[in-house]
């Protein structure tokens, strides 16, 4: 590779990473400060370093159970979303059928409604079903925006795989399920990794629906966080600590799917 071009790329990348990390650094920085220090002075490092904000979160059940609840319904949601989206995306990428284009676009339209619109109807629906304040209710509600996303992403990746590969496999005597799992899935690993990560991410940060459908047993961390606004003012330090901790599970998820995203297409397998 051309040396100068390589340098330009690296400089651009480093500049972007700095831009990406600075606000996050500021949050981490705040999480080790006291509220009075945050509001009174500007400093690159905490002057009175404290673990208190993290202690609050790890010792108070109403805080840490928020993380557990979120992880449960986000996990359920991600698994269902990707599992139902895989066959559907294959159908959309490989076959024509009655109304295929309309259904494909209709799926995406479900992401186009401001979530606030769905609050009251969802509340009524899940109350009628007796599913309020359960993890499964939130997981199901989040399918509304995650399934269409997963189908679209996976379809994009599947369409990039030449159809000759399917045909060769059928001629070689593979059954559809065996072909799908043994040959096709490895080819679209990158897509599955990205789709799973995005489903996780969108479900993890969604606030309005999760807050409306839960009260105690399944209360997610994003809803617990809104509690930091109280009569005595904003609890910036605890919010920053909680915010720092909300990044951790997602960072672990992307660490695990990184190979799927980075490796992508491996022609050698077929």
């Amino acid at each position, binding site marked *: 590779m*051309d040396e100068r071009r390589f340098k330009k790329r690296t400089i*651009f*990348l480093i500049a*972007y990473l700095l*831009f*990406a*990390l*600075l*606000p996050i650094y500021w*949050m981490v920085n*705040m999480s080790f400060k006291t509220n009075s220090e945050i*509001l*009174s002075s*500007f400093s690159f490092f905490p002057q009175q370093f404290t673990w208190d904000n993290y202690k609050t979160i790890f010792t108070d059940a109403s805080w840490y159970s928020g993380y557990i609840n979120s992880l449960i319904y986000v996990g359920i949601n991600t698994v*269902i979303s990707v599992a139902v*989206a895989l*066959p*559907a995306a*294959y159908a959309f990428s*490989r076959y024509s*059928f*009655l109304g295929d284009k309309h259904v494909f*676009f209709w*799926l*995406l*339209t*479900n*992401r*186009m*409604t*401001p979530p*606030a619109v*769905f609050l009251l*109807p969802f509340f009524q629906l899940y109350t009628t079903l007796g599913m309020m304040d359960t993890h499964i209710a939130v997981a199901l509600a989040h*399918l509304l925006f995650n399934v269409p996303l997963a189908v679209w*992403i996976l*379809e994009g990746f599947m*369409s990039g795989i030449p159809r000759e590969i399917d045909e060769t496999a059928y001629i070689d005597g593979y059954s559809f399920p065996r072909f799908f799992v043994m040959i096709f899935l490895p080819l*679209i690993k990158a*897509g599955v*990794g*990205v789709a799973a*990560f*995005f489903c996780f*991410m969108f479900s*993890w*940060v969604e*606030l309005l629906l999760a807050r409306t459908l839960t009260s105690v047993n399944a209360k997610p961390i*994003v809803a617990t*966080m809104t509690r930091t606004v109280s009569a005595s003012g904003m609890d910036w330090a605890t*919010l920053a600590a909680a*915010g720092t901790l*909300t*990044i951790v599970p997602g960072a672990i998820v*992307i660490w695990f799917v*990184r190979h799927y995203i*980075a490796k*992508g*297409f491996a*022609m050698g397998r077929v």
Partner: protein
Amino acid sequence: MKPVNQKAWFLVLPVFFCVAFSAILPLMTVVNYSVQDIISPERRVFVGVEWFAAVMRDQELHEALWRQLGFSLAVLAVEIPLGIALALSMPAQGWKSSAVLVIVALSLLIPWNVVGTIWQIFGRADIGLLGATLQWLGVDYSYTGSSTDAWLTVLIMDVWHWTPLVALLAFAGLRSIPDAYYQAARIDGASKFAVFRYIQLPKMRGVLMIAVLLRFMDSFMIYTEPFVLTGGGPGNATTFLSQYLTQKAVGQFDLGPAAAFSLIYFLIILLLCFILYNWMQALGKAERTEAQHG
């Protein structure tokens, strides 16, 4: 051409039920509200399209709509090229690749209300890094005082928050291009730009379309971050459509007009996405025929 196979519907059915379960009933409820005047849960009057007519005449709504369009277009104009550039410059292998991937994804994982809160502090001239740095550089910056500063801060916050989505999609798209294409290009002695223009860009078209549509519709519905950061101000500078809708629905508790507003809102997004989608499809088609003839 794809073979016709009606049995493929069976593969789609699970998705259809999952989404229809959560989508259709709520949508019917909203349509139902939008044609009634709900005075109390027991007393409702059918008013037909009255609310729709009222919403269409709403001057403030028109302003919010134009502000929204401007913002969404700015978001696309910055985030899509930046995301592609970022994906192209991310290392493809080794621990560096993993580290960069994780760092890039971090901003996506922060709950939206926290994003707003962090930037609220981050942008303050007395205690925030961004505000303090700008002040130190001699820029008179205040996101609470100046409309331009507030608008730019919301835009930069959105770029910071969401460019990784474009970058990750584009990066995964790039990684799934078979090596054979690059080898062929090397044999042909293709320039870096030619490789980008005739191999990488067309191969990324699918994921980029998703990125464009997602960023468009999500930025069109942006609510939490500007609400927390600026509260829509100063004045109305950062009051986008969603916030105006919420002001109407919650502030005045008018379910009927709010429902009519929601439906019109939804139809606007639908129409714009439909145009974007078809335009990008047509671009792709034109490119393919050109490749066949040329």
